[in-house]
C-alpha cells in the first residue's frame, strides 16, 4: 500500500464516542462547579447539589447513548429523522478510530447498561455523607465509567490496557475516599498494590503476545494463530511462550474480575470502600472487565482455547475452568463464614465470577460461541443490577447504624415490609431461584455449557456445571441468612430510619430487573445473544497493513508442521518470496496507521442482523461468524486483492486449496480472496 495514504479522521467516530466524551467532560464540569460556585456551602448540601449536577451529565450521556443506538442501527426509523450528510449513517462502521475501538451494536448496548448502572450508583452515593471531597468523588466515578465503557469497546491490546488502567486508577482512589475510616484507606491501599502488580504482569503478557504475533489487534491476533488446516482449535500444547503470555494475561483479568486465586484484595477493598463505591466496583468494573476478558479470550485467543475439542487439553479453556471451579467453591465457602454483609457480598461476587467463568469456558469450548457468550452477558447484566441493590442494603445500614453486619438487618421485614420483600427477591435471584432472573441466567449459561456435541469434553463440563449447582446450594446458606435476619428475627438495638429515595432506588431497580427479566427473560436474552455476535465477530478493522502483517506472520509459520507451535524460522515454500532476511522484515513492519479510505480493504461486519453489512470497500473481507444466521456471508463475491508487494499473496496462493477443504469456519473468510488471486 502507498505509504502516503491520507491520514484522515472520520468525524463520525466522535459521534459514536459521544457518551464517553460527555461523561469525561462532565467530570471536569463537576470539578469546576465544586471549587467554584459550591465552595462556600456546607458539606451536605454541596453533596446533594453536586450529585444532581452529576446525574444531569449522566442523563446527557444516557441520551447520547440511546440516540446513537437508535440512529446508527436505525431503530424505529430514527435514521431518516436524523441523518446529516457528513454523518454517512448508511454505513455503520463496526470499528472506529482505525480499529482501536468497536462501535457496534454490542458496544452500544453495553454502554447503555453501564450508564444505567452508573445512574443508580450515583444516586446511591447521595444517600449519606461519607467524605467532603465531593467534586473529586463524582468526577472520579464518572471517569472510571469512561474507562469501563472504552474497555468494553477496546479492540486492540494497547487500548485495552490503557482503558483498564483508567478505570482502575479511578477506582483505587474512590475506594479510599472515606477518609475518617482506617478500613477505607487500608482497602484502597490493598486494591492499589495488588492492582498495580497485576497490571504489570498483564502488560508483560500483552507484550509477549505482541512479540508472538506482531500485532496488537485482536482480530489480527486470531488470524495469526489460526492454522491453515484442520481444526481451528489448536490449543497450546508445547507452546511455552504462548502459555506464559496467556497465564500472565489471566493474572490481570483474574484480578479485575476477582477470581480465585487473584481475589485477595476484594474482601478488604469491598468492606473498606464506601458502599456506593463498593457497589460500583462490584458491578460496573466487573461488567466491563468480563466483556474485555471475553473479547480477548473468545476473539483474539480463540485458537488457543483448547486442543482437539476437549476441555482438559492445553489451552485457556482448561485454565479458565480451573479458575471457575476454584472461584465458585472458595467464594461460596468463604462467604459462609462472614457476618459482615459487605464482606459476604464480596465473597459472593467472587463466586459469581466463578459461575460466569464457567460460561466463558463453555463459550470457548462449544461450537455455539455467540449463544454461550450471550448467556454470560445476560448473567452479567442481571448480576450487575441485583448486586447494586444488594449493596444499597449495605449502604442503608452504614448510613443509619454505622456498621453493616447481617445481624443489623434483624426485624427489617416487619418495619419496612415493602423494601424487605424487594431485598428478599434480590437475594433469591442471587441464589438462582426461579422464576427470578438469576435463575434464568444460570439456566442459560449451564445449558449452553452442556449443550455440546463432543462427548470428550462433555463430562468435564458436566462436572463443572454440577459443581456450579452445588455451589448454588452453598450460596443459599448465606443468602438465606439475610432473609432469616429480616423476617424471622425481631428487631434489636437502634432501628434504621426509612430508606429514602437514594437507597430505595437501587433496591427497587434491582428487584424490577430480577422480577421482570425473570418472568419474561426473552427480550434481554435475545438482545444479549444478538449483541454477542458482533462481540465475537470482527473486530479490528483489518485495513491494509494490519492484515498483511497478520498474513505474513502466519505465512512464516510452517504450514506442514504441527499446528500447535509457533516457529520462528521460515518454511521452505515461503522463504524465497519472503526474502532471505526474516528479521529484517520483522523489524520494518508496514506502517501502523494506514488510511481509512473506502477503497481500502475495510473489513465489514455483520452487526448481529442489525448492522448493515457494509462491504463497499473493494477489498472487503467477509468474516463468517459462528452464528447460524450468517451463512449468507460465506457467499460473498470474491473481491480484488489490494495490490501489495508483500509475500503474503504468494503464500496465500499456495495455501488456498487446503483452506477450502479445511471446513473450518475461521478460515473461510480468507478463501474467496485467495481464489480470486489464483487465476
Amino acid at each position, binding site marked *: 500500500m502507498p505509504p502516503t495514504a491520507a491520514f484522515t479522521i472520520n468525524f463520525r467516530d466522535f459521534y459514536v464516542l459521544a457518551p464517553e466524551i460527555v461523561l469525561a467532560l462532565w467530570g471536569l464540569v463537576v470539578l469546576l462547579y465544586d471549587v467554584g460556585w459550591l465552595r462556600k456551602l456546607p458539606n451536605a448540601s454541596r453533596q446533594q447539589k453536586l450529585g444532581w449536577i452529576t446525574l444531569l451529565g449522566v442523563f446527557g450521556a444516557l441520551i447520547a447513548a440511546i440516540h446513537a443506538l437508535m440512529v446508527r442501527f436505525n431503530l424505529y426509523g430514527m435514521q431518516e429523522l436524523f441523518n446529516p450528510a457528513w454523518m454517512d449513517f448508511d454505513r455503520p462502521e463496526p470499528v472506529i478510530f482505525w480499529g482501536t475501538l468497536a462501535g457496534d451494536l454490542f458496544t452500544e448496548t453495553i454502554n447503555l447498561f453501564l450508564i444505567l448502572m452508573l445512574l443508580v450508583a450515583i444516586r446511591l452515593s447521595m444517600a449519606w455523607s461519607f467524605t467532603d471531597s465531593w467534586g473529586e468523588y463524582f468526577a472520579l466515578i464518572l471517569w472510571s465509567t469512561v474507562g469501563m465503557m472504552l474497555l468494553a469497546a477496546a479492540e486492540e491490546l494497547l487500548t485495552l490496557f490503557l482503558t483498564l488502567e483508567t478505570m482502575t486508577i479511578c477506582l483505587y482512589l474512590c475506594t479510599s475516599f472515606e477518609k475518617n475510616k482506617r478500613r477505607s484507606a487500608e482497602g484502597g491501599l490493598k486494591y492499589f498494590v495488588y492492582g498495580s502488580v497485576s497490571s504489570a504482569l498483564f502488560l508483560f503478557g500483552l507484550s509477549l503476545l505482541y512479540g508472538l504475533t506482531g500485532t496488537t489487534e485482536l482480530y489480527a491476533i486470531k488470524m495469526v494463530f489460526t492454522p491453515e488446516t484442520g481444526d481451528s482449535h489448536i490449543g497450546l500444547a508445547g507452546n511455552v511462550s504462548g502459555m506464559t503470555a496467556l497465564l500472565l494475561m489471566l493474572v490481570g483479568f483474574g484480578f479485575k474480575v476477582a477470581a480465585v486465586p487473584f481475589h485477595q484484595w476484594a474482601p478488604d477493598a469491598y468492606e473498606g470502600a464506601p458502599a456506593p463505591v463498593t457497589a460500583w466496583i462490584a458491578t460496573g468494573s466487573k461488567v466491563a472487565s468480563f466483556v474485555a476478558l471475553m473479547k480477548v479470550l473468545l476473539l483474539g485467543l480463540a485458537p488457543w482455547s483448547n486442543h482437539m475439542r476437549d476441555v482438559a487439553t492445553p489451552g485457556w479453556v482448561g485454565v479458565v475452568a480451573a479458575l471457575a471451579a476454584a472461584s465458585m467453591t472458595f467464594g461460596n465457602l468463604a462467604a459462609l463464614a462472614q457476618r459482615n454483609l459487605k464482606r459476604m457480598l464480596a465473597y459472593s461476587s467472587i463466586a459469581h465470577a466463578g459461575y460466569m467463568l464457567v460460561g466463558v469456558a463453555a463459550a470457548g469450548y462449544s461450537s455455539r460461541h455467540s449463544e454461550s457468550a450471550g448467556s454470560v452477558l445476560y448473567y452479567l447484566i442481571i448480576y450487575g443490577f441485583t448486586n447494586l441493590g444488594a449493596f444499597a442494603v449495605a449502604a442503608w445500614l452504614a448510613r443509619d447504624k454505622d456498621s453493616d453486619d447481617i445481624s443489623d438487618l434483624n426485624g427489617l421485614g416487619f418495619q419496612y415490609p415493602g423494601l424487605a420483600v424487594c431485598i428478599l427477591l434480590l437475594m433469591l435471584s442471587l441464589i438462582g431461584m426461579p422464576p427470578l432472573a438469576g435463575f434464568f441466567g444460570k439456566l*442459560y449459561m449451564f445449558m449452553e455449557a452442556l449443550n455440546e456435541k463432543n462427548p470428550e469434553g462433555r463430562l468435564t463440563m*458436566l462436572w463443572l456445571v454440577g459443581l456450579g449447582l452445588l455451589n448454588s446450594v452453598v450460596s443459599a446458606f448465606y443468602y438465606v441468612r439475610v*432473609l432469616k435476619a429480616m423476617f424471622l428475627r425481631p428487631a434489636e438495638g437502634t432501628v434504621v430510619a426509612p430508606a429514602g429515595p437514594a437507597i430505595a432506588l437501587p433496591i427497587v431497580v434491582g428487584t424490577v430487573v430480577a422480577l421482570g427479566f425473570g418472568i419474561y427473560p426473552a427480550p434481554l436474552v435475545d438482545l444479549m445473544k444478538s449483541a454477542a455476535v458482533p462481540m465475537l465477530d470482527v473486530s479490528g478493522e483489518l485495513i491494509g497493513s494490519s492484515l498483511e502483517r497478520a498474513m505474513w506472520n502466519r505465512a512464516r509459520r510452517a504450514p506442514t508442521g504441527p499446528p500447535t507451535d509457533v516457529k520462528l524460522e521460515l518454511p521452505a515454500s515461503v522463504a524465497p518470496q519472503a526474502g532471505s532476511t526474516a528479521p529484517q522484515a520483522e523489524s520494518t513492519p508496514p506502517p501502523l496507521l494506514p488510511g481509512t479510505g473506502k477503497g481500502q480493504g475495510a473489513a465489514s461486519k455483520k452487526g448481529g442482523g442489525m448492522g448493515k453489512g457494509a462491504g463497499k470497500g473493494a477489498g472487503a473481507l467477509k468474516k463468517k461468524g459462528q452464528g447460524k444466521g450468517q451463512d449468507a456471508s460465506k457467499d460473498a463475491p470474491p473481491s480484488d486483492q489490494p495490490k501489495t508487494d508483500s509475500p503474503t499473496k504468494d503464500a496465500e496462493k499456495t495455501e488456498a486449496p487446503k483452506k477450502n477443504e479445511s471446513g473450518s469456519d475461521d478460515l473461510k473468510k480468507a478463501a474467496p480472496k485467495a481464489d480470486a488471486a489464483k487465476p
Partner: protein
Amino acid sequence: MATLLVLTVFLPFVGSLVLFLQPKLEKKTARMTALITALVTLAFSLILTAVFKPDVTTPQFAAGAPGGPYGWNWLSGAKIQFALGLDGLSVWLFALTAVLQITAIFASWESITERPAHHYAFLLALETGLLGLFASLDVVVFYIFFEFTLIPLFFLIGIWGGPERRKASIYFFLYTLAGSLLTLLGVIALVAIHYQHSAGHVLTFSIPELTHGLANLKWPGWHSATSLTSPQVFIFLLLFAGFAIKVPMFPFHTWLPLAHVESPTAGSIILAGVLLKVGGYGLLRFNMSMTPLGAVYLFQFLVTLAVIGVIYGALTALAQTDVKKLVAYSSVSHMGFIVLGLFAMNPTGIDGAVIQMVNHGLTTGALFACVGVLYERYHTREMSELGGLWNRLPLLAFFLILSSLGSAAVPGLNGFVGEFPILAGMFAKNRTAAVLAATGMVLGAYYLLWMVQRVLFGPLREPHQHGDHAHAEVRPVGWHEIAGLTPLMVLIVLIGVLPAPFLARINPVIEPIAARLESSVPTTGGTPAPEVTHMNPAPAAVVARQGSR
C-alpha cells in the same frame, strides 16, 4: 378448558397478592378472603376433574392441540413453553391439593392470630405452586413451581412455627434446595441429550415430548445400562436426588420430622398431604418415564432403601411420645410404601402407588388436622399428658379414629385400596421386599391404634391449662374444624368403598410406563438379576387386579 386450568392455578396467587397488599387486614376478613379464594379454586378443580376424560392418555386441558405443542411460547429462543395440562397421574393430586387447602385454612381459622393476612397469603401462594407443579407440562415450568413451593413454606414454618422454627425452616429450605438443584442438573442433561441425539436435533422442554423422544432416541449408548456411569443410570441418580429428598426416602428424611413438628398445623397438612407427593410424582413423571433403565438397573438399591424406610419409619413412630412426631414418622413409613409401589414396575404396583399418594394425602392431612385441634386446646402433644378425650371431644375422637384406620389400611377404607396393590405388585417382583414391607403395615396399625388408645381411651387426663386459657372450658370441636375434616372423611370412605372411578383415570397413563419398564428388564445384559427376584407375573397380577377392584 385450558383457560379454566390456568385460572385455577393462578387464582390462589391472585388471592395471595391481595392479602399481601393488605397486611393490616383483620383476622376475620383475611381468613374469609382466603376461604373464598380456596373454595372457588376447589370448585374449578372439581369441574376439571368432572370433565376429565378417563380413557385419554395425552394431557388434557392443554392450550395447544393434543400431541403438542401444549402451551404458549414463553421463551421463544429456547423453546420453553408455558404449558399446563392434566393427565391421569396428576389429576387426582391436583384435586387433592385444592381439597386439602380448605382443611388447611380451616385448621388455622382460630389458631393464627399473629399477622393473619400474611399467613393466608403464604398458604395461597403455596397452593398456586403446588397446583402449577402438578399441571405443568414443561420441565422448566415444573421446576419453577417446584422451587417456588419452598418460599411460602419457608416463611410459614419460620414465622408461625414452634420454638425451633428458624432452624426447622432453614433446614427444610436448604435440604430441599440442595436436592432440587441436582434434579435441575439431571433435567438439563435430559434436554441436552434429547437435543443432541434425537432425529432432527429437536430442542424441547415439553415433558410429553421428552418422554416420547427419549424412549426413541437414536443413540445405542442411551439404551443400555451396564454401570453407574451409563447415561440413564447417572441421570436417574441426579433426578432421584431431589425427589428422594422430597419424598423423603430413608437416608434423606431427616429434615421431615423437624419441619413437621415446628410447622403450624396448616403447614403440616400441606407439607405432608401434598408436598411429599411431589417426590413420588416426580419419580414417576421423570425417573420412571424418562430414564426407566436407571430404575431397572438400580432396582435392588432402590427397593432396599424403600423397605428400610417403611420399617425404620414405623419403628421410629412407635418410639414417639409426641403425637405430631408420630404422625410425621408414619409419613416416612407410608411414603416408603409408595416408592415401593413405584419400583414394583408393574401396572398393579404403580397403580397402587398413585392412588396411595392421594390416600396418604387425605389420611395424613386429616391426622395432622386432628393433632392441630388437640394442640389448640391443650397446648401439648405429649401422649403421656393426654387420655380419655373421647368423653371430652367425641367428634374429634371420631375423626381421629377414622383417619387412623384409613391410614392403617383397614379394608373398606382408602389405605387398603392403595397398599394392597402395592404389596401385590411388589410380591410379583420381589417376594422378600414385599414380605418385609408387609411388616411395616402391621407396625403401622400398631402405632396408630396405640396412639388412638392413649389419647382417646382410658381415664380422662388433661394437662394444666396455662396462660390465658387457664380454667377455661375446653371448647368443643368447632364448626370450622368439622367443615375442614368432613370432606376428608367422606373421601376416605368413598375411595375405600368405590375405588374404581379413581383408578379408571389413572390406569391408562400407567400402562405404557409400566410396559416400558417391564419390557426393559430382560434386554439389559448388565442388569443385576437378583436371586430373590422370582418372575411370576401372571398369578400375582390376577391377585392384584382382584385386590384393586
